[in-house]
């Protein structure tokens, strides 16, 4: 664990660049802002709908995408990753550190957004259940998303683009049309987890047990794949 502390430090400082932080705070603040506007305009409170459509389907994957692909992808791209690669540190430790920090930061942005949105709008059912259910689902789902995007960024320099395609095209369109692809959707598993708390989510999400298995598999798979890839990672010379 001691050897991972400097990895946590450098990852966190790298992620908290001024521009990226502002973008992420704005993104995570979007549902809160909309909730506030609804409240001010006197609209009908319905936190479940906003949390489902805006947070789980949009904000959470995008925040995870930006943070996940930047945690090591940006270091690989700008060449600073070489300073990690020439250290006597097991590669799985690097992968786990990157995922832990990125997932923690994602949770730190998304979960408060869920809580604030829930508090501002309230639920037609039980507000506390909605807030707790979506918070837990976003914590676990956001971690799975982040881990997947960290792993993706170790394999390709186009992780941001591919991640966006996964969120918008695969999960946004295909997973809704093709029933069998739900098992490959982090979003569906996240909603399945929320449903386990008694929250009504639209459509037919995955069963809670299946959701946990899917999210767990994504998380473990991402750690294993990222570690495997980092162990074989090559840094090309300039000539």
């Amino acid at each position, binding site marked *: 664990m001691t*050897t991972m*502390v*400097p*990895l946590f*430090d*450098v990852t966190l*400082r*790298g992620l908290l*660049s001024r521009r990226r932080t502002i973008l992420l705070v704005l993104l995570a603040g979007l549902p809160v802002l909309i909730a506030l506007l609804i409240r001010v305009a006197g609209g009908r409170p319905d936190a479940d709908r906003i949390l489902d459509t805006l947070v789980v389907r949009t904000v959470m994957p995008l925040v995870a995408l930006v943070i996940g692909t930047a945690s090591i992808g940006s270091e690989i791209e*700008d*060449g*600073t990753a*070489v*300073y*990690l*690669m*020439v*250290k*006597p*540190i*097991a*590669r799985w430790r690097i992968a786990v550190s990157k995922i832990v920090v990125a997932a923690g930061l994602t949770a730190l942005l998304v979960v408060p957004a869920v809580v604030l949105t829930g508090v501002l709008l309230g639920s037609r059912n039980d507000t506390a259940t909605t807030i707790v259910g979506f918070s837990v689902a976003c914590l676990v789902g956001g971690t799975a998303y982040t881990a997947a995007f960290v792993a993706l960024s170790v394999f390709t320099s186009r992780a941001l683009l591919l991640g966006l395609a996964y969120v918008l095209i695969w999960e946004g369109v295909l997973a809704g049309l093709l029933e069998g692809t739900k098992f490959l959707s982090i979003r569906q598993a996240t909603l399945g987890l929320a449903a386990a708390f008694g929250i009504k989510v639209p459509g037919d999400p995955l069963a809670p047990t299946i959701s946990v298995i899917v999210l767990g598999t994504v998380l473990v798979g991402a750690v294993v794949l990222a570690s495997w890839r980092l*162990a*074989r990672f*090559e*840094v*090309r*010379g*300039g*000539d």
Partner: protein
Amino acid sequence: MTASPMPPSDQPPVASPSGTAAAAPNGTAPAAAIAPALEVDHVSRWYGNVVAVNDISFGLGPGVTGLLGPNGAGKSTLLHLMAGLLQPSAGRVLVEGASAWRRPAMYRHIGLVPEREAVHPYLTGREFARLNARLQGVADPDAAAGRAIATVDLTDAADRPIGTYSKGMRQRAKLAGALVHDPTILLLDEPFNGMDPRQRLHMMTLLRSMAADGRTILFSSHILEEVERLADSVLVVYAGRLAASGDFRSIRRLMTDRPHTFTVRSSDDRRLAAALMADPAVFGVELADGRVAIRTADYDGFTRALARIAKAGGVTLYEVRPTDDSLESVFSYLVRR
């Protein structure tokens, strides 16, 4: 100093500095009994159809070795192979006797200064050195970082963000990061890039003293003067192949297909020239600008015979100067071959 005989045209000249095990290019036994700290054994690396490094072998022991070659020759690829950052397509790289590829533990012995300038811009020089010390698991990272910063003469700017550094300062910060764990092997890719003459001199003195302490130091450069001033021996890489290795003056002497030239100032140039023409080692003499210019195929034979010939002819020698054993001369010959 030992030197191998002139190899056939497709093999590089190999001169083995004493104390350094230099493996001959075709897998012959190392010249010295001391196991090299770093051994490159028939290593090739290709990217698709492009061969970046082609069947290179050598060994490195304590001392400073210059890795010389024009841009695009494969220097950085070779350094990255040695640093375990690239997998050889063929052959093997051994660090302290074990494979360099996929062995993070070897980085306890290695310090690397990569060519790319990128250093975490939000860290100060001291923080960067400290980060490297912590990642290396050094017992007292603060003290180690402070020592490394002082060693590279960066103390005054140590608490400024690296993003505000000049190129030369960034190079020194990178070197500080590579020194924090007191490595026995240092691999430096174009370490003098962007340094002013004073910084360059300081760095050269530092590297020389580290080599004198028994460290194995390999630095790449395309600046001949840097290599000539600093390196005990050179590895000349051209088009992915090892063109020559060893002390460059020894390499020059192995180039027997190219005459050695000397200029001599004496008390009687004309008489000396006439006497020299009678010597079988000499096949060209020219009188010009108050000097005798001599061409010979036998470096050692000529240098032994010159004093004897001058004495026999009653000529006093004022100055004897070899004119083509500079690294520049050797390098330009090797890359044109």
